[in-house]
């Protein structure tokens, strides 16, 4: 799972028949730089959300075929919001001792 910042929502007027009641978020996935600067995210992607994440939240996005696992029926999804992140502890290098 990658971390991502939620920046918006998408609604559909026409949809694939397998979708119904979907909640779609526009998010910016974090790159290595984002962990230090809070900026420099990757290009936006759309993720399927069942947890109720809002704009400004940091979320964990599961991608690839695993994104479809939580669904009862086969659903065309390649990015799934699996967690709303409370805290990120990040330390790129081991601190020097002594």
């Amino acid at each position, binding site marked *: 799972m990658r971390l991502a910042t939620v920046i918006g929502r998408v609604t559909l007027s026409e949809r694939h028949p397998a979708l119904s009641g979907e909640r779609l978020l526009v998010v910016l996935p974090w790159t290595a730089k984002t962990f230090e600067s809070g900026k420099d995210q990757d290009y936006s992607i759309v993720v399927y959300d069942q947890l109720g994440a809002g704009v400004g939240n940091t979320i964990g996005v*599961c991608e690839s075929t695993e994104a479809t696992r939580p669904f009862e029926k086969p659903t065309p999804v390649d990015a799934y919001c699996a967690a709303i992140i409370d805290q990120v502890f990040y330390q790129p290098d081991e601190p020097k001792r002594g």
Partner: protein
Amino acid sequence: MRLAYIRGYVTSTVKHKSFTGARLLIAQPVDQEDNLDGPPQVVVDPLGTGLHEKVIICSDGSWVRNFLNDPKSPARWWIMGIVDEVAGGKAK
């Protein structure tokens, strides 16, 4: 499977129920010369890995679904082993 360094952890209250109780660490994938290669991944840690350890992360979702005891888990990356030594491994 990829080589990676553990650089931190995340905490989450609202999450897919399969992650309850799982350790979620931040793993930075690296290439054969320890250069950063790709975005950090949040990985499931079944081993009790420490900060800054070099590990192998694996994208076999099927094993980690079994580990988390939930066939509906969206988990994908997990820590398969803690690296002792990489012998050779430099590009020619």
